[in-house]
């Protein structure tokens, strides 16, 4: 990278102008003043920056409204295919491991919604490999804000809303199919399960990205835990072999995304015999798992040396 490349085009320093920023003169829109004093790792400036970066991306993507609508609908339908599969299967089979169509749809919607939101938020982590290869991650390091928030804000594609809507529709259908005696604690468990699920999937994206600091290439094996994880949590846990179940309980805590909260909300017995109190523990597990992910991320950033191009 030569010095010339990082200098903005045009006069430097630019002439002060009231329309600077967002005016098509090659300069980014000015960031909130507080950011100038941003200290790496501090929460508040990171968050302000995150919001500003996301806003800029969203408005950029909304410029192509037709393209956005087509893609969002495409995402909705593409993920809806799996749900159609589920419905087809239940035309032929009465239940799976004692769960009816509505109950499985509940798992499916809960997992899909949580995954959809994390997918919307975490595109930047998915693209980290490219940033490392192109050397643009160096730029991230030179800025006076945390690397985590910058990468998190790196690629927010609003077309992924389609996936989120799909999760909500499925969850809504499921709730209308199964008789749930709703109580305040159940609503709280449902809401916290969605948030916890988002955090757990986010932590997986982060750990997957942190590994790329060593491997450079995105390990497609991350897909096993992200997309594969979404598929896994769509069905009741007892159908899986014991080794797989243990792994996704104690190592990667996907069991907390949908299965355990669903047991509580649908008042189902757990043939696995896990302590019932775990059904309420999704948020705690999610926070711990995210801390582990942040630690991996910090290790990765420290290990990063650039690709030398």
């Amino acid at each position: 990278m030569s010095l010339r490349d990082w200098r903005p085009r045009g006069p430097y320093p630019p002439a002060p102008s009231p329309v600077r920023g967002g005016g098509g003169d090659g300069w980014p829109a000015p960031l909130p003043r507080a950011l100038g004093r941003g200290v790496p790792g501090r929460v508040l400036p990171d968050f302000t920056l995150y919001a500003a970066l996301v806003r800029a991306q969203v408005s950029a993507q909304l410029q192509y409204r037709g393209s956005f609508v087509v893609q969002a609908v495409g995402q909705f339908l593409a993920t809806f295919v799996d749900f159609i599969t589920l419905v087809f299967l239940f035309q032929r089979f009465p239940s799976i491991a004692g769960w009816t169509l509505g109950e499985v749809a509940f798992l499916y919607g809960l997992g899909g919604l949580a995954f959809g939101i994390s997918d919307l938020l975490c595109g930047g982590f998915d693209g980290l490999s490219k940033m490392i290869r192109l050397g643009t991650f160096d730029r991230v390091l030179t800025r006076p804000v945390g690397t985590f928030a910058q990468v998190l804000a790196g690629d927010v594609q609003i077309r992924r809303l389609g996936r989120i809507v799909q999760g909500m529709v499925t969850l809504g259908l499921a709730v209308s199919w199964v008789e749930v005696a709703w109580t305040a604690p159940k609503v709280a468990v449902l809401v916290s399960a969605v948030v916890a699920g988002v955090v757990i999937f986010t932590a997986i994206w982060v750990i997957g990205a942190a590994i790329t600091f060593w491997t450079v290439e995105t390990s497609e094996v991350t897909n096993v835990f992200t997309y594969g994880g979404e598929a896994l949590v769509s069905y009741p846990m007892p159908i899986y072999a014991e080794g797989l179940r243990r792994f996704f309980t104690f190592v990667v805590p996907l069991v907390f995304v949908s299965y355990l909260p669903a047991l509580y909300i649908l008042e189902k017995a757990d043939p696995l015999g896990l302590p019932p109190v775990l059904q309420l523990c999704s948020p705690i597990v999610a926070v711990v798992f995210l801390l582990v992910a942040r630690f991996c991320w910090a290790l990765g950033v420290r290990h990063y040396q650039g690709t030398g191009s």
Partner: protein
Amino acid sequence: MRLYWELARYGFRRTAIYRSAALSGAITNTFFGFLRAYTFIALFQTRGEVGGYVLADALAFTFITQGMAALIALWAWWPIAETVQTGQVASDLSRPYDYQFAWLAQDYGRALFQLVARSVPPFVVGMIAFGITVPTDPLIWLAIIPSIVLAVAVSFGWRFILNLTTFWWIDQRGIANTSMLVATLFSGFLVPLAMWPDGVREVVYALPFASMVAIPIDVFLGKLQGVDLVAALALQAFWAVVLLALGRLVLSAALHKLVVQGG
């Protein structure tokens, strides 16, 4: 002929470069195979047989489909669209070969590599983990080869047309999403067509997508015998010819539209 042979070899080598991608892809395919296998195991505890499929068939179905996704490039294959976007297509079109057959030859090379790298490994893992078996009837082995060759041709014919839409619509993501949805659903990739609702099944079976996945699998599982087998292969051949011919029509329409800048 020799030229197309070389192009097929080139297609093979070009795909084989991405060895680590093939490996991690095979791992992902296998993992999804496991998830789907456990689903079928749990489902078949409630019923012994559905639409002529028993559990062993469903397990084999699972690992074959996971392997076939890459073989027929069910989800993502846009090299022609990329040449349209970069302008490379102009020089490709002026080369002394048949444009469509040149790509078809390369695609067979690609498919052969994927067969070895992405189709066989998940199946072998499935054999070890779930005891699925390979057919013993030599007739099935005799029929499965043309069936797969035709499945690749049908899927290529379809993908060729999709790629050419880039001439009209430079951003192919909308088309990509829609086609992925249609192909995944109607090819019988997720649920064996035999388990589909009556009435819908017969229609879907006749569509070209069933010729890409469902028919080769039913051939492999020995679900098609005698006249049915011949009819199924004929249906695949029919769609291969129709889609390839349609692709040539679309190509000539695209060439009328193509304006090459500069020189």
